[in-house]
């Protein structure tokens, strides 16, 4: 019996360790293979210039248009999503706190939206565009991405707000706060570190997504100057560069991937740093 339990223990511990190593290995391998192929094409020019020199997306110049497009799009979409998400998350946790069944329903609904593939949002955005008689543009991309990341942001904020003890709410009410005051003066501050993480999580999803912007933001070889301009994005520039028959352009796809991975890594690290930092300071 003891030998059997010992074997069992060792077996499952070993299994867990192997799978853990495997998943870390796969991640490192992805980064390694992107780096291997892309590092030769990566240059200062790549991140400071717009594409030049012909073939579809250019062998010369850089992908500044896509970097700028991605940042414009992700930042504006995140801001827009924040404006929508903050009241919703606070509403759920302050006004609807009594209605447990309704809350369960809303959370379920948001989780489903979270799981909807981004191409569906893209198609949805496209249909709306046609209906309104607009063309692909930065503005349309921003709205589509905002709609896509809002459920993520709401649920992430909601999870933070759920951890706030009922005692704090009681304390705020006992001082004579209204619900709105409790929401924006007490809960908002209490949840701020967690909100930073929620915002950056949504931002990361927004900047890395390609399918939602495929039909809505379009693609160009110049940096958008206004909301009605079409905008290039990093994921789509990887997609189009990989599709090119020219080797040099293909290698540039990997260089673009390095840049994208680097941006997302930087966001993740700052999310960690921010939440840790403000937790210590509260």
């Amino acid at each position, binding site marked *: 019996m003891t030998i059997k339990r010992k074997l069992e223990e060792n077996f499952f511990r070993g299994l867990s360790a192997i799978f853990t190593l495997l998943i870390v290995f796969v991640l490192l391998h992805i980064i390694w293979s992107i780096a291997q192929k892309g590092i030769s094409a990566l240059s200062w020019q790549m991140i400071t210039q717009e594409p030049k020199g012909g073939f579809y997306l250019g062998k010369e110049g850089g992908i500044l248009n896509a970097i700028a497009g991605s940042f414009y799009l992700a930042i504006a979409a995140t801001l827009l999503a924040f404006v929508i998400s903050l009241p919703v998350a606070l509403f759920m946790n302050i006004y609807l*706190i*009594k*209605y*447990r069944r309704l809350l369960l329903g809303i959370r379920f609904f948001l989780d489903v939206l979270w799981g909807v593939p981004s191409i569906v949002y893209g198609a949805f955005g496209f249909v709306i565009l046609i209906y309104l008689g607009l063309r692909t543009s930065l503005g349309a991309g921003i709205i589509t991405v905002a709609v896509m990341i809002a459920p993520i942001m709401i649920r992430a904020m909601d999870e933070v707000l759920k951890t706030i*003890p*009922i*005692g*704090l*709410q*009681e*304390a*705020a*009410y*006992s*001082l*004579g*706060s*209204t619900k709105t*005051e409790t929401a924006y*003066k*007490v809960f908002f*501050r*209490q949840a*701020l570190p967690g909100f930073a993480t929620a915002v950056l999580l949504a931002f990361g999803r927004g900047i890395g997504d390609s399918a939602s912007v495929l039909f809505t933001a379009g693609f160009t070889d110049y940096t958008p100057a206004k909301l009605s301009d079409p905008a290039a994005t990093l994921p789509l520039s990887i997609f189009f560069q990989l599709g090119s028959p020219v080797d040099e352009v293909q290698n540039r796809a990997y260089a673009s991937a390095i840049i994208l991975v680097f941006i997302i890594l930087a966001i993740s690290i700052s999310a960690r740093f921010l939440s840790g930092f403000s937790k210590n*300071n*509260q």
Partner: protein
Amino acid sequence: MVTAISNTSPETVTVTIPVSQPIVNISNLHVYNKKEQILKNINIGIPKNKITVLLGPSGCGKTTLLKCLNRLTDLHSDLKLSGSITIDGDDVLNTRNDITRIRQKMGLLLQRPYPLPMSIYDNIAYGLKLKGITNKKIVSQKVEKHLKEVALWDEVKGRLKSSAQSLSIGQQQRLCLARGLAVEPEIILADEPTSALDPISSRVIEEEFLRLRNDYTIILVTHILRQAKRIADYVIFMYYGEIIEYGEAAEIFDNPHTDILKEYLKVGH
């Protein structure tokens, strides 16, 4: 003279005690949740500027009764209230009354401190601003006054702008008391306010209550018998959602009428 109890349960003893000016009047209060009745026909007057202790075993409805007084029961959808509670003439359970104003008549101290996520200074100033006091000079005078009132001023005067979370838990609880006093309530509701505190911090809170009794009505929920004996003027003994006995502390402790209370006092020693 006010008849404090008019309960019909066979275990209940009707006690008539002199309540000269009851500040809180509870009549025919019933509280149900989905499955059971949590409070059964509560009828009681709570005297002004005294410490009234709600005593009884866990789960007997003490905390629910306390939270009915400032309608924090609103936070729970499954609680249904009937009956009436008047505080200083205001009908608490009437939803047409401005509950935020009524709540400001009562400071609240919970089982553990919940400082607001802001500085020590702003924790006190928050309630003042809700009352419409915006003059900076008056606000800072009041902050100082109320921090002195709970004997916290000397410990924090050098770091008023630092986070309230940086205080020890005993200091946080005193800050919460000061925060409650800043809205100038008439009543202090305290729900086992020393249960998370070390003995020394607990003693500080108890001494605070004894001092505040001159100006405030204090309603204290506790299951610590010795604490009740140390500070209570009046005792309400509850059991399974009912008030079993109510009277002056000395009378309740020295001359219990019901078997339940006798047993509770015996075991509690």
